[in-house]
């Protein structure tokens, strides 16, 4: 049993990276390993958007990540600088920026790049999807 850390840097529906990462995560867990965390950076921050509403015959990746979290308690960390620039913020960031709405909520957590480096440090295997 090993700890896997995943870095996701592609946006849903614009890049196949989130699909690949999700399939990989499930396969890793099926093999009896653990996923220490998923870090969303660059355009990957769009995975965390609670306002995503794809057609019904397409997978809702936001919901699929939450399901993964609920089944396996995997932390879903989102780079705050990459997120704010791209129009993604939590309730507290919305207040800080004087915005009326927010589109990132738990279990997704806005955090700094330090968390990415920390995830890389404590994972026996670190795999990037971009």
């Amino acid at each position: 049993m090993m700890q896997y850390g995943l870095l996701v840097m592609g946006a849903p529906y614009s890049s196949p990276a989130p699909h690949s990462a999700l399939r990989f995560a499930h396969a890793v867990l099926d093999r009896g390993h653990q996923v220490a965390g998923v870090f969303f950076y660059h355009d990957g921050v769009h995975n965390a958007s609670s306002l995503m509403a794809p057609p019904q015959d397409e997978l809702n990746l936001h919901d699929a990540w939450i399901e993964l979290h609920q089944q396996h308690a995997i932390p879903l960390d989102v780079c705050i600088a990459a997120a704010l620039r791209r129009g993604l913020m939590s309730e507290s960031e919305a207040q800080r920026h004087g915005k009326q709405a927010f589109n990132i909520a738990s279990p997704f957590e806005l955090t700094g790049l330090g968390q990415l480096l920390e995830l890389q440090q404590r994972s026996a295997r670190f795999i990037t999807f971009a």
Partner: protein
Amino acid sequence: MILHILTKAPGSSAALQMQQAVAGQDSVVLIEEAVTAALDPTWKAWQQCQSRIYLLSEDLLARGLATIAVDNQLPTLEMGGFISLTEKYEKSVTWY
């Protein structure tokens, strides 16, 4: 020893950069658009990496390239095989 994961087609900058970075004991997994390499058995990386380069079969199937990969006798693996390679190799680098 490194597991290289390529997500872009042969001829892309990503593919060329990966080819520069591959060392003797490394392995390569081709996923996403990189599985279009199945169309080109003359691609240099096939020779360069010999028995240590694989196409992800799920991504071949999605793109209608599975038969062509078989016809060209190129090595494929499933997601489980991909996981096995990540178990074997401590480090991985993704080229995109």
